[in-house]
């Protein structure tokens, strides 16, 4: 399962115990209409182990570009082998934003915009 970071996602029914674990110990936010969402308080390492145990399948994260919110091309990224997506901070940068001359300035501007 690929778990998106920064947007809601749905899970199959996993039982009361898993739900309690996910919301109390893992720190997932839950909305009955939209589903689960990862927040800064979420323990991603724990989320992976709880979900893997409950779903019996590999769980990985999909990072998004902090500037344009596009999905980052993890599979073709040069750092794919060393980037432990369950333990890194959730936003990344996509190829097109990274290639721009003023990429860091744009990144900073986006941060300012969101932190107001």
């Amino acid at each position, binding site marked *: 399962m690929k778990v998106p970071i920064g947007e809601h996602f749905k899970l199959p029914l996993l039982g009361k115990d898993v739900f309690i674990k996910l919301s109390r110990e893992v720190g997932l936010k839950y909305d009955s209409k939209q589903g689960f969402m990862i*927040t*800064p*308080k*979420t*323990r*991603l390492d724990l989320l992976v182990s709880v979900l893997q145990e409950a779903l019996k399948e590999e769980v990985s994260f999909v*990072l998004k570009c*902090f500037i344009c919110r596009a999905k*980052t091309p993890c599979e073709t*990224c*040069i*750092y794919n082998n*060393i*980037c*432990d*997506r369950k*333990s*890194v*901070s*959730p*936003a*990344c*940068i996509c190829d097109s934003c*990274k290639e721009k001359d003023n*990429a*860091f300035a744009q*990144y*900073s*501007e986006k*941060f*300012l915009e*969101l*932190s107001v």
Partner: protein
Amino acid sequence: MWVEKYRPASLAKLVGNEEARIGFLKWLRSWKPGGKAALLVGPPGIGKTATVHAAANELSYDVIELNASDARTKEKLQNALGPSIGNQALSGKPMILLDEVDGIFGRNDYGGMEFVMELMENTSVPLVMTANAQDSPKIGKIAYKAEVFRFQRLPPRLVELYLRSIIEKEHVKLDDESLQSIVLRSRGDVRSAVNDLQAAAFGLLEFEVEVPERDRMATINQAFQQLFDATNHVEALLALDSAPVDPKEKVRLVFASLVSSSLDIETRAEALEALSRADEIVGRIRRTQEWRQLRYLNTILAIGLFNAIQGKRLQFNADPVPWETKLRLWNEAKYFAQLGRTLGAILSISRKQFAEAYLPYFALILAKTEGGEKMLGRMGIDESTIKVIAKEGKKLLEALR
């Protein structure tokens, strides 16, 4: 150092952990007396302390920083923080930062934890704590009562983005492959990535990523040789920073190189003095678990060593025993073993016992006794062994005189 030069003045100049940074900024903006304390948790080198300082700077707070590892008793904490708690008029707009709060709760927690819990309840200024350990029960207690912001290592692409911004400002020429090597080495630790970048800019970094043992030794060799050949303090510090060994090993390798060197005795004494100061720090850290002091180790060692040996040739050597000595010991050991076997059997003792308790006296007696060598021959000891033991006896005799 570039890590200091590029210490961010505002939160927007940091990278990674965006939501945690925004969350912390919002917490600080909306903080009111009686509000919750903040706890920033995550591995070292990812910007927790930098976030606190940058946010404080943006919101005009004066940070009263206390390295919790330095003051772990209730009394010390009280003395250090007492005046600033509830005394806003005197200190402007204060904010308390207990950096690396896990240090308070080490082996010697003399009421530190209790004090922090009280402080969290009663402080009239924002209280911010940082911690590396996420899962310790004591941090758990603090986390339960605080607003927690979890910081994680950075995705490598963001580390690259940050390094590129420094490269641009410093007008450094670095090919993509080298930059990527630095990013890979850093494993999401921005501080170490910036240090490596500076080392690379000074031509002091060997670019290896998955380093096999043989290459790792080559890198260690090169880093220490660069430390010994440094022409200024910064070069020395960067070289030592780039050596991929733990602090204890750094001290051992410098020691090995010094004692096996041909430096004059005064220079060696001065360098060993600098090394002993570094060794004291390593020992203190191991005893007290105050890992924050590690940041001073490289500086003290690199600068002390540079001052002691500058302009003189020191060759890196990982082994403190010179090769000639080792060769002699190895050769002689064969003879001593033979002697121990033969005489041990006669005396009904082991070879080891003979070597440890009897050999020096035996050699001395042999050197003092007329015809002792012939007597050994009659006992079946071969001529080469007799020569070695006789020589050893003479040396001992001279030493005793």
